[in-house]
């Protein structure tokens, strides 16, 4: 069997099919946002849809070329590619062009290239290379430090470009680490951190403290110390009521949450004697974690104040703190109106009034999902989400069938990046995630993003096609 024939035979055609379908649905959406009555023809290169067609054809050629490359190239040069990408990210800080307050574009003639898009696959290659080393264990401190560094460099450089959204994408690699052995509690802690962050902004400090105490008590019960938890709770309530009464007698110089905090502190110190006398190590750790959480929520307000105003606004809007219709809520409100007005089956191709009359901002890039939602309705939106889900699950499936750890790690990187982009982008258009400016893969207008995702996927498909030649 010739080499080329073996690639074709072992290539995952289902993934290629899903890729092509998504790319063309994406192009149709870009066409819908840019279409004007009386302007027919898809080869209008002054329009976004005309240009996007060029990028798509070029991306196909690029994908084909990647399939012809020997897999050893990717393993051998992964760190070189990573290094070059980092240099580009550094270079764009100095020589880049500033667009919408982000300095993340190289301008070559009339073409703009965004290196942060290409840094994603480079980082994935580097991670795959590092983690496929013999006997690599994620949970070793040195290894964790190394992985953290590999992510921190691109994320930091992109943050410096003032493109916070793209920097956050690197958080997605936590899923890869989890698959490769990262302790589940770390993932859980990350989830808890995000949840508490949101809670501490939305709710009063008293409520937040109550929630933390309840979680601590539930966890105590989980470790089969229900009796201790109950007595602790009783002591806490008594202590709180006493302090509260005292506070009231003094014409309430302290707020309610301060009183509860004092009560919790007193009870915690008292229980320490009990814990040490009975050597309940787990409860000690729990108590420590509980206090870390308290400290964290107190500092969240400080962190929040240090964010840029527009970031604060976006978070506030998501959490429903500010009125949605005016100012910063305009984006999300108009996006939801566009999608919501689509109904069950949508208004039909090119019939969307909300996207056509520019109500939706960034309608061809970050908010492209509005075009899908408005013109194809619930049915179309669901199909797109299911197609993405199928694609991601397929990539996970393919990753699992790899014999080499390099290919598997890389595959999980692909799945994680895709998942993060899809979840955050669609989530923001339907108001479940703050407005974070990252593109929807294959849909959003722009050559850099389309090419970067194509490269990411085709490298994996190339590795997958070679899986049978790899020996463990």
């Amino acid at each position: 069997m010739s080499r080329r024939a073996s690639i074709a035979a072992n290539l995952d055609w289902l993934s290629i099919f899903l890729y092509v379908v998504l790319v063309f649905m994406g192009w149709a959406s870009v066409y819908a946002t840019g279409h004007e009555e009386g302007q027919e023809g898809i080869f209008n290169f002054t329009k976004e849809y005309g240009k996007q067609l060029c990028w798509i054809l070029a991306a196909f050629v690029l994908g084909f070329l990647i399939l012809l490359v020997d897999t050893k190239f990717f393993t051998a040069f992964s760190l070189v590619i990573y290094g070059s990408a980092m240099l580009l990210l550094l270079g764009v800080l100095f020589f880049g062009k500033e667009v919408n307050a982000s300095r993340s574009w190289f301008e070559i003639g009339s073409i703009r290239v965004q290196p942060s898009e290409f840094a994603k696959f480079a980082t994935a290659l580097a991670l795959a290379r590092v983690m496929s080393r013999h006997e690599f264990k994620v949970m070793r401190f040195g290894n964790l430090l190394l992985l953290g560094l590999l992510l921190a460099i691109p994320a930091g450089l992109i943050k410096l470009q003032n493109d916070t959204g793209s920097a956050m994408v690197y958080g997605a690699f936590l899923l890869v680490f989890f698959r490769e052995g990262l302790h589940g509690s770390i993932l859980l802690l990350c989830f808890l951190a995000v949840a508490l962050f949101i809670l501490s902004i939305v709710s009063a400090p008293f409520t937040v403290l109550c929630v933390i105490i309840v979680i601590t008590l539930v966890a105590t019960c989980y470790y089969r110390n229900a009796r201790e938890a109950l007595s602790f709770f009783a002591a806490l309530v008594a202590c709180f009521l006493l302090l509260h009464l005292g506070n009231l007698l003094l014409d309430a110089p302290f707020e309610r949450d301060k009183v509860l905090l004092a009560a919790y502190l007193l009870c915690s110190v008292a229980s320490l004697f009990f814990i040490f006398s009975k050597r309940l190590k787990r409860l000690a750790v729990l108590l420590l974690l509980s206090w870390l959480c308290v400290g964290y929520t107190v500092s969240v307000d400080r962190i929040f104040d240090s964010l840029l105003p527009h970031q604060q606004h976006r978070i506030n809007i998501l959490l429903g703190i500010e009125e949605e219709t005016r100012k910063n809520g305009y984006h999300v409100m108009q996006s939801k109106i566009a999608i919501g007005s689509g109904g069950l089956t949508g208004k039909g191709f090119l019939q969307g009034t909300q996207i056509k009359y520019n109500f939706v901002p960034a309608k061809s890039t970050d908010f492209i999902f509005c075009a899908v939602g408005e013109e194809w309705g619930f049915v179309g939106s669901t199909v797109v989400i299911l197609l993405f889900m199928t694609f991601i699950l397929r990539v996970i499936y393919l990753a699992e069938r790899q014999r080499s750890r390099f290919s598997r790690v890389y595959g999980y990187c692909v799945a994680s990046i895709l998942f993060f982009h899809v979840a955050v982008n669609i989530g923001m258009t339907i108001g479940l995630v703050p407005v974070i400016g990252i593109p929807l893969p294959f849909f959003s207008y722009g050559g850099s993003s389309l090419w970067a995702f194509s490269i990411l996927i085709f490298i994996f498909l190339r590795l997958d096609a070679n899986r049978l030649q790899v020996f463990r």
Partner: protein
Amino acid sequence: MDKFGYRKGIIAGIVVTVCTVYIIQLFHFQVLDDTYKIKAENNSQRVETLYPARGLIYDRERRLLVDNQAAYDLIMLPRQVKRFDTTELLAILGISREFLERNIAKCKEHSPYKPSVLVSQIAGDRYAVLQEKLYRYPGFYIQTRTLRKYHVNHSGDLFGYISEAGAADIEKDPYYAAGDYIGTTGLERTFEWLLRGKKGKKIVLVDNFNREKGSFANGEYDEVATVGEDLYTTLDIDLQSYANLLMQNKKGGIVAIEPKTGEILAKLSAPGYDPRMIVGQDLGRNYPSLQNDPLKPLYDRTTKGRYPPGSTFKPLQALIGLEMGVITPGTLFPCNHGAYIGRFVACHGHKSPVNLREAIETSCNPYFINVFSRVLESPRFRDVRDGYNEWRKYIIAFGLGVKVSADFEEDNGLIPTQEYYDLRLKTRNWYSSYINSLAIGQGELAITPMQMANFTAALANRGYYITPHIASPTNDSLRRRVQRHEVPVDRAHFEVVIEGMRRVVTNGTGWRARVDSVAVAGKTGTAENPHGKDHSVFIAFAPADDPAIALVVYVEHGEWGATYAAAIAGLLIEKYLKGTISGAKRAEEKRIIETNLIFPGS
């Protein structure tokens, strides 16, 4: 080997969970919740043009002459129009069904997505009713415009009017759109760039009842309108109104200039029209009658009227003769009811011989024809044609036969060239006697009152004039329009001529221009008119030693310069310098006002 393999299920589970949550959320607000569909329907945008108020026009004392009044246009946005009660709309607007249907068709043809003016300039009372009921008419809304409001009832041709920009205007300047107003004539046209300001636009979100719901995209695409700049004219509205009063029932033109500054104090073309006749919808109603009026009220006689200067040309001949050294103030020429100079030149009875001062005083024709011959036939020239060219240069230097003012569309007038006479006389060998009627302001000469007033200002200034202008130079681009022009004649010669012009008023033909305790210098003229009675002309400035006003008065068919033009000039000078007319002159004023030269005897 791979002890974490089980975690693929957890990761896949996270992916499936998130996708499921999203699909549930989509189902919730795309299928179950109707509020977004209603909001989308209400999400209609409307682009409103914000018309700036046009700049105001003031006179030199900052008295308001022209300002603005509100008018209302009914705008239609065809895409948003639903079925409506046409009968009611017709009743409110007071228009015919055909008119409405024709205009609706026009609006639709213009664009289904862009707003068009359906009915323009709706009266205030109709607007009040319409506004109450507008909610029943989706796709229709009101746009407030401003129309001109005048505080004077004459001099319409000076102020000009505004009308909707035509296809040619729109093509020439993309700033204009259909339905915009543009200054069409007069000051409105000349100072359109100053007065118009800058249009703004506002994009508003409107609901399906056509009610405003706030700005689109936080007003990111809105533009503020900039109010037009005010025009401060140099006009003295009291003098202008008085000139209008004196010129009633007469044809002609008056231009008065402050010589030191070139500022136009009055500029009246008679008969004129009341500018209030052609404001807004009245424009279409009254314009045709003005246009067809045989008295041509729309025609600006002061800048476009071509008149021979008559004897008012004589002081200029004296200046040229003195400057070229062909005569001195003492030079005498004989005249006995005329003289033979190549041909017989008739004159009226006065003493003989006369010197220069006396010649100006008596307006002696043979004297100036002699001067003219000496100029043209001066031995320093190769032939008469060279002499003529030199003579013509002096005429042009005084701003005659060329456009002189900064702010008006003018006729050039005509000072024939030497080539013109070569052709006309069919020979290159002509003599001064062939064309010597030029010396007394007759012949082929054509000069506008504006040029004549400017020439008078140059006499008053004894050797220079400032570009006549009507806009106070409040900014740089206005300042650049005004320049000082020197005249190549020695100041001493002016004094001799002005002495002669003083005598015209004190002892001679211009006695009607006398003003108590003011030294008036003037010159009468009679412009020959082949079509009827001659035109009466008078140029004057006062006070003679330190002139504050220089003016020209043309009265068509007024026969002798002395009869009407000099009297009017005297009254205007008195009015301007003293503010009122003294008792002695009241009778004269009454005579002038009551004279009807258009329909004599009526």
